[in-house]
């Protein structure tokens, strides 16, 4: 399992558009399961609505865990995505 932390900079937080794009990104990495955790709550990042319902806001830090597939490559790609979009 590969894990990293990221602090959201987008003023609206993880809203529909980047959440949707994130789901797309994860789907392109076959075999990797991605979990996003904020505080006590964790969500499978493929679950678009659940991810949005976490209500992750600007300035909040999330933990991203990647399990399975090419974990290093998936984690790097997701980190790059978050930096570019959130």
């Amino acid at each position, binding site marked *: 399992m590969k894990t990293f932390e990221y602090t959201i900079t987008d003023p609206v*937080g993880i*809203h*529909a558009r980047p959440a*949707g794009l994130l789901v797309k990104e994860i789907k392109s990495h076959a075999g990797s399961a991605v979990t996003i955790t904020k505080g006590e709550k964790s969500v499978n990042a493929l*679950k678009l*609505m*659940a991810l949005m*319902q976490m209500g992750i806001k600007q300035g909040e830090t999330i933990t991203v865990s990647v399990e399975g597939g090419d974990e290093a490559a998936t984690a790097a790609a997701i980190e790059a995505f978050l930096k570019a979009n959130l």
Partner: protein
Amino acid sequence: MITIQGKGVSTGVAAGPLYFYQRAKGAFTRHEVEDREAEWLRFKEAQAKAIEQLGELAEKARAEAGDEAAMLFETHQMMCEDLDYEEAIEGFIKEQGLNAEAAVTDAGVIQAEAFAAMDDEYFKARSADVKDISGRIVGILMGVVQGGIDSPVPVILASDDLAPSETVQLDKSKILGFVTSGGSGSSHTAILARTMGIPAIIGVGDQLKEEYQGRDVIVDGGTGSVVLDADEDTRARLMKKRAEILKRQELLNQLKGLPNVSKDGQEIRVYCNIGNPEDVHAVLENDGGGIGLFRSEFLYLNCDDYPSEEYQFEAYKKVLSDMGGKEVVIRTLDIGADKMIEYFKLPHEENPALGNRALRICLNRPEIFKTQLRALYRASAFGRLSIMFPMVASVWEVREAKKMCELVKKELTAEGIPFSDEVDVGIMIETPAAAVISDRLAKEVDFFSIGTNDLTQYTLACDRQNNDLGRFFNAHHPAVLRLIKMACDNAHKEGIWCGICGELGADLELTELFLSIGLDELSVSPRAVLPLRQKVRETQVRVVREKLLADLLRDKNEL
């Protein structure tokens, strides 16, 4: 070829395939299904269809407004196959045996409530997205076509009638015209059609059959006819009419807003004749300067008993307020002769045109007259009203009618009901007697309006309903034209205005003469306003005046 007759409520001619508006058959029912696996597959198919539709919308948005705009639909696509959402639906169908429509709706509600409970406005608003996609999938399950029209080419849209929400969602670029089996002139379909400037025909009833779907049809909103598989002659005739209407439309655009003034600066007011409050839209659309004749009979013809003061008041008030301060001349009840009404229980007459009609009935039955005048004066507070009495032959009749007006005003004042102090009272000049004594009548009233149809029939002793009279019924007869000039001259001597509200007003062969006589107003059907304006604007009154007035002294047929 099949011709169906309805009521035209928006003019124009259009041709295209007939297409029945596709809608769900009411709300879905919630029930248990026998074959849960099949129901699940039914959902999966609808889900795939929804994703496909959203993909099309995304591409359309991308082409029109770029990637950002497309993203909304792409997000909706992803929401359609959201894992939690789908899992919930799967559970409802496979474990509880719920039908797909109910399952999708319930799963949508769960997600929508989760968003609605969030403390951020942005996320709260996402509950609408969930409802939207659920609605889309349910619609597909129920066989609804988004926007009601699924056709690659524009169509003549057929339906029973359309609900306001349905008219809003219609893809307007796909509609050439409307045909409805039910509906009314003020239905949303009619209003939409007039706004779009396309033909609409309502009330065709069960002649409109779903089996006609896709057949070639030509609709004529002017006559209210719907022609299926028109033969060559009919098609040619209607297409020619269509071309003329388009030309008129062009004329309208050029002449709209321009004054009715001759080349040498003589102005004439061009008003409209209407018979129904719904006609006001046509007056405004054709740039009529006011209403010169509002026939109040429709109120009586639409009822099974005498229309109440309140009912009449609402109708008059609507017209006056819709006209937004432009003058509206309302003619008091004009029945009898050719317009009989059952509940008036008028005795049979051998010669009704010369019988108990119009103002004569009102003066003999003051309770009917008073109800109408009360409604009129009450409505006067909402616009610029003028009242006109029909079928006057003597000065005493006018005085008696005016006395009734005074009585009504006194009553309203005593009751504290508001009305305007500036209501003009005028009469129709439609009997030869009225024209001949117009010098005396002009002292009694604020205006004259000449009813040329009756004036011609009475002057020439020619029944206007008798088609065999042909050449004897000559509305251009110098006797009629001289009476018009006499009434107009006498009006001007007393400083009041004189107009025409009969058919002759729109007769472009006479426009130059009417300008030469110096008529102040012509009231014509709304469609005739702009052609008349064009004629007025082409005329040099100074050049034609002398000859035309001299011609009044002889009949063209003498030449």
